């Protein structure tokens, strides 16, 4: 079976499973909306200060919801030994990994697609002022989150404390992604020159490329028994 074929099969399996149970996306979505609402209490209603923090609030809601979803999605894989069985099959282990990355990315994207319009209504800001640039920020940021998040969720579900380890490992390493995504959203919301967002897009792109390559290189060694 070809590499991309395997990736797609894993992705298809996850999506079918999710359509049946709807556990991951639903819990992520409710949590992400809840974060959006709870974080609105940090400033007075209608205050102009909100424009400077909305990018951060939106991304924090994705990050927290993402942490929740990653744990859930990897737990179903480990309980019952499905992951073990997949790794025993005669395919490249990293193709299984990137299949999981693709499905985690899709789950997060689904949450973002629903959260962003509701967020826009509640906060009365237009994060899409950057047009294609905003879309790239969401795309690259979510991919960076998914690629390292999937790896660290695999690591953390194998520890004694299970999901506790995931945020402790993932958040410090994701600092560039969080910083770049939040800062570029702020540039669009505050109506600054969009060219200011290019360095941040570059950081996101570099982060994504480097860690895709690194995980691709080391994944086989990490999972071999």
């Amino acid at each position, binding site marked *: 079976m070809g590499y991309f074929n395997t990736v797609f099969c894993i992705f298809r399996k996850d999506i079918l499973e999710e359509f049946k149970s709807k556990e991951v996306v639903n819990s992520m979505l409710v949590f992400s909306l809840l974060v959006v609402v709870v974080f609105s209490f940090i400033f007075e209603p209608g205050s102009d200060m909100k424009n400077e923090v909305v990018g951060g609030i939106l991304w924090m809601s994705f990050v927290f919801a993402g942490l929740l979803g990653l744990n859930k999605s990897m737990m179903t894989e480990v309980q019952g030994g499905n992951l073990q069985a997949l790794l025993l099959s005669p395919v490249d282990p990293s193709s299984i990994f990137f299949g999981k990355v693709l499905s985690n990315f899709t789950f997060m994207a689904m949450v973002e697609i629903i959260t962003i319009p509701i967020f826009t209504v509640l906060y009365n800001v237009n994060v899409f002022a950057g047009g294609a640039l905003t879309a790239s920020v969401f795309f690259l940021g979510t991919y960076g989150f998914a690629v*390292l998040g999937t*790896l*660290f969720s695999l*690591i953390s579900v*194998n*520890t*004694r*404390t299970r999901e506790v*380890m995931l945020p*402790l*490992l993932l*958040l*410090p*390493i994701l*600092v*560039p992604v969080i*910083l*770049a995504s939040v*800062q570029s959203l702020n540039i669009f919301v505050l109506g600054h020159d969009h060219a200011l967002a290019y*360095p*941040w897009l570059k*950081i996101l792109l*570099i*982060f994504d490329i*480097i*860690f895709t390559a*690194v*995980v691709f290189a*080391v994944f086989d*060694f*990490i*999972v*071999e*028994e």
Partner: protein
Amino acid sequence: MSKEKILDAALIILVPFGLYMAFIYAPVAKSLGPNQKIFYFHVASAWISFFAFFVTFCTSILYLMKDDFSFDDIAESSAEIGLLFCTIVLTTGPVWGKAAWGAWWTWDPRLTTTAILWFIYVGYIMLRKFIDEDSKRARFAAAVGIIGFIDVPIVFFSIRIWKNTIHPNVVQKGGGGLHPMMLHAMFVALLIFTLLYFSLLIKRVRLARARRRFAALERAS
């Protein structure tokens, strides 16, 4: 006499010599006064923590390639020593910062990166404690050791873009106008801290090996 004993004996002589160089030989700084003395310990600790994490990075790769637990022992030991010195950097830094800039903390790229670095390796050490199976622990920790280290420059550059306002840049400022005698004291401090690192590493690796042997014996009985 074993190499380790020679190293330890050398340190017994060199550490007081280093203190002499920092406190008596090097002149007192004009603007900062005796506060500046912390610089020798701060810079040397920063160097050791980066060096130690680099050693963890290299031995993590070697472990994944060679599947030899002795590399894992070095990776673990080095990360622990690195974290110790990183903690020293983060405590001496604000003391110096308060005297030099009037603030304990600025979100300068160097400071922020060091703080993130600290969190990454706290995570690394916690992860090791939470996995019981030897080979699983070694493989997963190696992944964090490799990814964490590669992440550091990206963190640094992203924070530099964030804080493009220039904060007082101690090392560059100091390096340019540092008195030659201060420079001597600093190089002596760097050398002594490096030797201290190797001395601690040898002891910590021996402890890790003993633990591994003990666990194996326990399983066998």
